[in-house]
């Protein structure tokens, strides 16, 4: 397999009235062609800011440092006009709330035809035909009739299917899915996860799947990156991370999911709360909440996981 996306030491800061606020603080990761990388973390860990940076969708005033390369091409230095030839065609996105990504005044058909014609040299009739094909592919019943529907006439699950069709129809190299099933009911979520798995098989899709839900990430990802307070806490093969986490944060997160195991007394919990971006702790940012922390954890920053994965921790579990 070859590397499609490589992110090195990516930093993202947002402009605020009180000065720049660092949301992502030097993360590195890479995605192999055809693989699915799960990016996991709680609110404020920087996973969505990372997604926005990858898609060139940061708000004005935001600054990025480091490097993001897609098939060797540097993206952080792209101008907005250059981004337009990358976004959609090379990197495509699906967000949590399809209603806010779809134009309420355009029908499903208008969305698809416009997207297809922007990226491919198609006649209107050919684009319409291709649109019907895409709706069928994402499991929308009676696709020809659905072209005339408006977003508000569709259920949440159907809207997300339309968003997936829109994201995939230009044939992107990479799909970034930011909490794509979080707003859906669990039975519909299962359908969408199945759809993504099917499409991945058909199209050989490469995907970054961002979620806070460890159960969802287990179902979709080959590799997992766990983020905490703007940094990578742990990286590795999905099965390894979920069965033998090395970072105490990953361990705590997994333990505190009220899982589908019979209950065995109280739910283990991580003390304290996720720190605010305005007030990140020194050293290892998890140290104030960590049962294994000692003096060094509060003073020094642990090394980030290398290319083969591992934990950014001075006292990782399972490593002598």
């Amino acid at each position: 397999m070859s590397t499609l996306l490589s992110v090195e030491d990516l930093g993202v800061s947002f402009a605020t009235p009180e000065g720049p606020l660092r949301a992502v603080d030097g993360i590195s990761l890479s995605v192999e062609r055809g693989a699915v990388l799960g990016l996991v973390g709680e609110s404020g860990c920087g996973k969505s800011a990372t997604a926005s940076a990858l898609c060139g969708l940061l708000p004005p005033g935001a600054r990025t440092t480091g490097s993001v390369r897609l098939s060797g091409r540097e993206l952080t230095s792209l101008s907005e006009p250059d981004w337009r030839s990358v976004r959609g065609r090379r990197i495509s996105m699906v967000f949590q709330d399809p209603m806010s990504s779809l134009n309420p005044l355009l029908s499903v058909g208008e969305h698809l035809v416009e997207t297809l014609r922007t990226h491919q040299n198609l006649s209107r009739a050919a684009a319409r035909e291709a649109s019907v094909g895409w709706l069928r592919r994402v499991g929308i019943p009676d696709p020809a009739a659905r072209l005339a529907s408006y977003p508000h006439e569709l259920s949440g699950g159907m809207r997300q299917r339309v968003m997936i069709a829109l994201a995939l129809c230009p044939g992107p190299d990479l799909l970034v899915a930011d909490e794509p099933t979080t707003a859906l009911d669990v039975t519909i979520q299962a359908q969408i996860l199945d759809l993504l798995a099917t499409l991945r098989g058909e199209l050989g899709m490469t995907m970054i799947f961002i979620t806070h839900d460890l159960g969802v990430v287990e179902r979709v990802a080959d590799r997992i990156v766990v983020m905490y307070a703007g940094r990578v806490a742990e990286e590795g093969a999905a099965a390894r991370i979920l069965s033998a986490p090395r970072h105490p944060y990953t361990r705590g997160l997994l333990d505190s999911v009220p899982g589908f195991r019979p209950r065995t007394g109280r739910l283990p919990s991580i003390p304290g709360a996720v720190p605010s971006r305005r007030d990140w702790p020194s050293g290892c940012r998890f140290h104030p909440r960590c049962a294994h922390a000692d003096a060094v954890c509060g003073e020094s920053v642990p090394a980030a996981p290398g290319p083969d994965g591992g934990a950014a921790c001075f006292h990782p579990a399972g490593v002598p």
Partner: protein
Amino acid sequence: MSLLEVRNLSVRFSVRTGVFSRSRAWLQAVDGASLDVEAGTTLGLVGESGCGKSTTARAILRLVEPDTGSVVLGGQDVRALEGPALRRFRRHMQVVFQDPMSSLDPRRTAFQAVSEGLEVHGICPAPRRRDRVAEIFRRVGLSGEHLDRHPHEFSGGQRQRIGIARALAVEPRLLILDEPVSALDVSVQAQVLNLLEDLRDERGMGYLFVAHDMGVVRHFCDRIAVMYLGRIVEEGPAEDVCRTPLHPYTRLLIDSVPALGARAGTVSVASGELPSPLAPPSGCAFHPRCPLAVPDCSAVRPELEVVDGNRRVACPRYRF
């Protein structure tokens, strides 16, 4: 006799059928729900969005008026109460909502929010109120220095603790928890669930826990009632319902949860989506999505039948 006895509760809303339309239709949000909550135990009410679980909770609290049915709390017929008598009785049934930010007044301090109930119900004379609230704060894991802060100064988990403190202050016998941890990060969710469990055991309150997350419900509840399109389709001990669900809808719900430990490909994803509650299917409302359905299912609406002594299921074909 149970602490809370709900019998044959129905709620319907009159809704406009189109944006500009004057025609109205009845939406049967809750259709003949019966449930019991024992003191010192938790009944989980689960289902997907629009199934009527929150409306059931609100009807019990008389925040919406039921059409038919009875609600008896501690021997008192709640539906027979009006005006000041109802207001006085409300101290016995309190509620914690999902989003504490929208249920707390942004201009009032945490102390004011929590002491309001003490004042309204005349529970604690004014000079002693501050000490009393400080005591409740300590019990829910907040400290005295939090008393004079405003909601925006708290994290999500802390705000939910304020919501719990406010409900506890009037010493209710029944606490209705409407998705109390759904908006919280996993690591904080576990803390709040543990706190709620301790409080229930200390004070012998009965909990009605409305949730959509089967993992949380399995961990937290003694019994579970599953709702689909306004009707309870299954009810029983939490562990039994999760381990051996009887109703085909409960099976779908549990199979759909991306559970830790259950790898991809093991899930039977039902086709179809939730039907419109404005036009529920005839007979058993689940029949269009049900893998076990036979022609009779669209004709006869099944009632809850007792199974194995302490379980109830509304499906004549659950053995298949």
